[in-house]
């Protein structure tokens, strides 16, 4: 059997990759990078780097960063809530997760964006749990009915109760890491167990240009020590917070991420770290950050290729849209992003469900996007030979009356070779009319309701749940919050 090739997208030549990396190292050394975190500065100092304590500027030497790269694992394993199912993050494996931290949800009934509440968060987690092509869950919505100081922890709490999938999350405040880790450890039954089988990824963004804030640096250090993977989310905005050229933005992206890798490895040698990002082509007309721009996706595919060259797992914010509703633009931008991301072999792709520049989640879009992700998976599975011979034996005794539909060959392969969407419209015109000329968002909404109705919640075991609630309530109390919304 001839080996199936995995189709691949590569935008950079090896020479350009090396040039971008060289320039990133030169900037880290000569200009340095700002790290506004005492502990990290101390780590750099101890490693022999020149540190200006007043300005928080660190001059990073290439040999230190290369040493750190050598100890960062190329492949990470993530485990679901049960600890039984594992996911490989590395190589050309692709895992989609819903875009995270949306400020609003698109209310299907009114067509308006509104503030999400606990019930939305629960529906979102339950839905994510049921979508086959979305491998990870994310702490995707900010509940407006819980007080802000616990908003980041609360999302994780709900996610852990209602879904088994590994979680992509992040902190909004330095103090939040501890209780979030405690929730994760409670599921696993201990800190050691959690480090052995990581259940979550923590996103941490440098502040472009060339700065790591106290909050996100602390998150890197804390996650490294807890054995949890960090995702480095560098996000230059072309011409606004990074150079306007794509290659120039890539240089800055690589410099910021390399500093992140160094922080993680100095905090704990061998700790898992993912080379990610959420850069964007900055719209010079509107001052917005379009995630659906083709140039945004080019930056993503570019740095992902560099991440692979550096032998690190990769991540990107792709498969999302700037549209405000589930229209043609939403499908177009999401489809492009999901397909290009999968072809680029990005290991963690965050985006499905998202609209309006990373700010609005839509349950309807999430189920549409699940189907899009399915198509992307099919594409990268490639064209396989399947049988030997491929066809000649099937044509033996061929006549014009030969029936393909009833051939055993057809029955054997049709489900593997092809996919059958539930939401995309493949009806004939008459059937489409007879079904009420429903636009895709309408069909998606029915699908959402059907999934939520027919799948009982994948609830965590009772005693674990009690422990999660205890941790959350204790933390809420410390923050002066007496009561929390009742869960459905």
């Amino acid at each position: 059997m001839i080996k199936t090739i995995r189709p691949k997208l590569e935008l950079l030549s090896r020479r350009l990759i090396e040039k971008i990396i060289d320039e990133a190292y030169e900037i880290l050394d000569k200009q340095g990078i700002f790290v506004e975190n005492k502990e990290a500065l101390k780590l750099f100092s101890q490693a022999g780097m020149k540190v200006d304590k007043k300005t928080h500027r660190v001059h990073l030497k290439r040999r230190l960063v290369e040493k750190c790269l050598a100890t960062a694992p190329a492949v990470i394993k993530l485990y679901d809530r049960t600890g039984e199912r594992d996911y490989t993050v590395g190589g050309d494996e692709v895992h989609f997760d819903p875009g995270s931290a949306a400020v609003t949800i698109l209310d299907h009934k009114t067509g308006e964006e509104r503030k999400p509440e606990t019930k939305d968060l629960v529906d979102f987690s339950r839905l994510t749990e049921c979508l086959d092509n979305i491998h990870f869950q994310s702490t995707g919505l900010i509940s407006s009915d819980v007080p802000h100081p616990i908003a980041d922890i609360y999302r994780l709490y709900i996610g852990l109760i209602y879904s088994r999938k590994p979680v992509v999350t992040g902190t909004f405040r330095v103090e939040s890491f501890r209780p979030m880790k405690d929730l994760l450890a409670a599921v696993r039954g201990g800190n050691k167990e959690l480090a052995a089988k990581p259940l979550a990824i923590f996103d941490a963004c440098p502040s472009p240009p060339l700065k790591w804030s106290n909050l996100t640096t602390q998150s890197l250090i804390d996650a490294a020590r807890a054995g949890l993977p960090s995702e480095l989310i560098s996000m230059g905005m072309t011409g606004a917070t990074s150079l306007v050229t794509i290659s120039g933005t890539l240089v800055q992206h690589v410099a910021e991420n390399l500093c992140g890798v160094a922080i993680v490895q100095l905090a704990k040698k061998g700790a898992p770290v993912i080379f990610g990002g959420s850069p964007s082509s900055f719209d010079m007309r509107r001052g917005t950050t379009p995630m659906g721009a083709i140039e945004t996706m080019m930056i993503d595919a570019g740095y992902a290729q560099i991440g692979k060259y550096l032998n690190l797992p990769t991540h990107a914010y792709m498969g999302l849209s700037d549209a405000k509703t589930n229209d043609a633009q939403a499908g177009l931008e999401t489809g492009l992003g999901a397909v290009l991301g999968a072809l680029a072999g990005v290991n963690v792709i965050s985006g499905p469900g998202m609209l309006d520049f990373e700010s609005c989640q839509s349950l309807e879009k999430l189920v549409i996007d699940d189907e899009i992700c399915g198509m992307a998976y099919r594409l990268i599975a490639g064209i396989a030979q399947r049988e030997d011979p491929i066809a000649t034996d099937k044509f033996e005794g061929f006549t014009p009356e030969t029936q393909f539909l009833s051939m055993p060959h057809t029955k054997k392969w049709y489900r593997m070779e092809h996919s059958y969407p539930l939401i995309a419209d493949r009806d004939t015109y008459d059937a489409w009319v007879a079904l009420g000329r429903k636009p895709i968002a309408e069909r998606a909404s029915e699908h959402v309701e059907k999934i939520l109705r027919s799948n009982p919640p994948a609830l965590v075991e009772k005693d674990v749940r009690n422990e999660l609630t205890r941790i959350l309530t204790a933390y809420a109390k410390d923050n002066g919050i007496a009561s929390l919304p009742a869960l459905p």
Partner: protein
Amino acid sequence: MKKEELFARIEKAIIEGRKSEAEDLAREAVKAKLDLTEVIEKGYVPGIQKVGDLWEKGDYFLPELITSAECMKAAMAVLQPELDKAKIQTRSRGKLVIGTVEGDIHDIGKNLVASMLSANGFDVVDLGADVKLEKFIEKAEETKADFICLSALLTTTMLGQKKAIELLKQKNLCGKFKVLVGGAPANQKWADEIGADGYAENAMLAVKMVKRLMGA
């Protein structure tokens, strides 16, 4: 050079975003002992107004807009000390204190708003990002500002906008400053809910709103 010619050249320098020329022309005007308020009103202001028009028509994008705004700032930095020396009161269109609220480091949008306001002749005191709420009020009192502008990009920190207004109420300073809010999670509804005087979704609309509130 005739006065009119100088004004025309100033206007053009602003429109085309040539900073050193905008500064040089300001120096020339000082040397020629021209009426500097007239220089501003007839040279610089029409320039930045045309820039605004070009933006609205869709000819100009942010890089042109911000470059011109920076030219204005540079020229004003030449003229202001001279005006102060001569104790000439320019017709200030209004004074604003602006910043991103505490806990929040998103400052790109705030910077755009500050640049555009200052280019349009408003006195802008930019406090930066992650600014303590008390600091806004202190600065506003100290500089006798007309507006306090609060930017917030996080759902957690937008609460700071509400708290700032409550703080003003506590200090009985409510009517004294108009409070404007903005940033991605904010909207008109939020502004109404917390009793802010205004909200704008982008920098150009922010300029329009401030002009309206100043009755200009």
